[in-house]
């Protein structure tokens, strides 16, 4: 895509849940290239496998088969390799969740500095300086000592993004990060994503915000029943979808007023 060097190469990724008797395959032979500094949006109905795909990339879900190559300065690693230690991988990949997953017993600042200090071994002063710098950029500096439940949903989600960014990740995975927010608060979170894009962050988003996907994505993938039915630049996918299913999905999205 755009000739960029791939950051992540997914090859024949397969994932299923359940026992042997009741197996439900949620990802069928997924193949996808994510270029460096590229933004890829995964769209599709709930249950189509978007979140599972992100969780597989962050090794939160063990995969059944296939390869997920993560390229970086130290060469390439296959994240699907059985027995691979997930911790060194996860510190290179930031993830933001739909439900924020902030730690409610810690202040905003502590939420952000915990991992840099415990995982990267940064000093308290160093970690705090980075955190404050990021909070300042997102207009949250005055919330550093607040606790998560004292913040609005939009503020909590921005803190969650700062928490992930404080690890200085090479790749960000955003799992429906605006799905739990009321429409007024969605904008402030999406602005942060725009800024990350302008900074050249490589990102994979699972999203229901079609307008936003259209604006920000380099590549949009439409998933249905665990298969990438169609992937194309947004201008193409949203205006001339090739598959009947994609057309149908987009028609329903338009009918619900979300595009």
């Amino acid at each position, binding site marked *: 895509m755009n000739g960029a060097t791939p950051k992540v190469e997914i090859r024949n990724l397969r994932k299923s849940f359940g026992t042997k008797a009741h197996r439900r395959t949620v990802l069928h032979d997924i193949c996808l290239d994510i270029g460096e500094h590229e933004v890829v949006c995964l769209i599709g109905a709930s249950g189509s496998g978007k979140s599972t795909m992100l969780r597989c990339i962050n090794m939160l879900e063990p995969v059944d088969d296939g390869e997920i190559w993560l390229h970086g300065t130290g060469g390439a690693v296959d994240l699907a390799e059985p027995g691979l230690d997930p*911790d060194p991988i996860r510190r290179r*990949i930031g993830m933001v969740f739909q439900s924020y997953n902030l730690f409610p017993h810690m202040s905003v600042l502590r939420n952000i500095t915990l*991992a840099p200090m415990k995982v990267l071994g940064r000093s308290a002063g160093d970690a705090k300086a980075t955190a404050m710098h990021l909070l300042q950029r997102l207009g949250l500096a005055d919330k550093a000592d607040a606790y998560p439940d004292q913040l609005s949903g939009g503020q909590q989600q921005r803190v969650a993004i700062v928490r992930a960014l404080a690890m200085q990740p090479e790749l960000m995975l955003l799992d429906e990060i605006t799905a739990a927010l009321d429409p007024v608060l969605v904008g402030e979170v999406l602005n942060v994503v725009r800024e990350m894009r302008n900074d050249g962050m490589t990102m994979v988003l699972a999203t229901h915000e079609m307008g936003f996907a259209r604006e920000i994505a380099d590549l949009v993938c439409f998933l249905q029943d665990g298969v990438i039915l169609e992937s194309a630049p947004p201008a193409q996918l949203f205006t001339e979808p090739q598959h009947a299913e994609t057309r149908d999905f987009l028609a329903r999205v338009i009918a619900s007023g979300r595009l």
Partner: protein
Amino acid sequence: MAALSHREGAGDPPAPSRVLTRREVWLRQQRRRAALIAASSMTAVLLAVVLIVPRTPGWPTVKKTFFNGARFRQDFPDLLGYLWTDVKLFLTCVPFILIWGVALAMMRNIRNPALFPLRAFAAAYTDLFRGIPVILTIYLVGFGIPALGLKGEFHLLWFGGRWNSAYLWGPVALILAYSAYVAEVFRSGIEGIHESQRAGARSLGLTQTQTMRHVVLPQAARRVVPPLMNDMLSLQKDVALLSLLGVYELFRRAQVIKDRTFNYTPYVVAAVIFLILTIPETRLVDWYSARHRRRTGGSQVA
């Protein structure tokens, strides 16, 4: 009106309105009715007790042997002195129970297959000691282990004595039994922390141990305080069971006085003394639980 006076910049807070709304009148009526019902039913019950109990054939004897005023005045200060033994035994057990209970809860959460024996041990341990009545554990440990004929002496916090002493194996029995209860409380607390908290922590690269230490345990500890305080309250009372091993504490002392005087008043005194200790503790648990509920949200259903 209130808003107006503020806008005009009047310094005084607005005076409360004298006129009650229809809703306020209704609520006031409801409160009065509830208070009236409670008061009359309480009076009826008390009246029944006061009228019926003295008419029972054994009442004069019961009054003399259980509620003897002179004995009460004489035994109260005597027995109060022995309360400290119960409190000391209780305070000695608590730290061991908490530490051993948390350790057991952590063992049950182990997912590493190499450490499966630890997990199995913890499961078997809690099954065993939760399934046996405390009094049996006290008998078996308190009489069984000293029967091994251990020699020598030990020193531990406030207590010291011979290795076959009831003052050692009695508390050990309580620690064994109560750590099983406490382990279950902690385990439910740990399991009650939503998986998304773990996902959040692990996605940042925190290890399993770091996730447990910094994210899961601190949140679980806060949640288990009310049930934990309940268990501690039971423990405070169960210390009296150690009298069966010959530990000379409040209940044992009451027994000794009873045996000497053939009067049961010391038991009533002992009960009163326990209440003096446990009622404030109970209120503390209730207050903390209510505060915890308020803080974690959720309002009362009408």
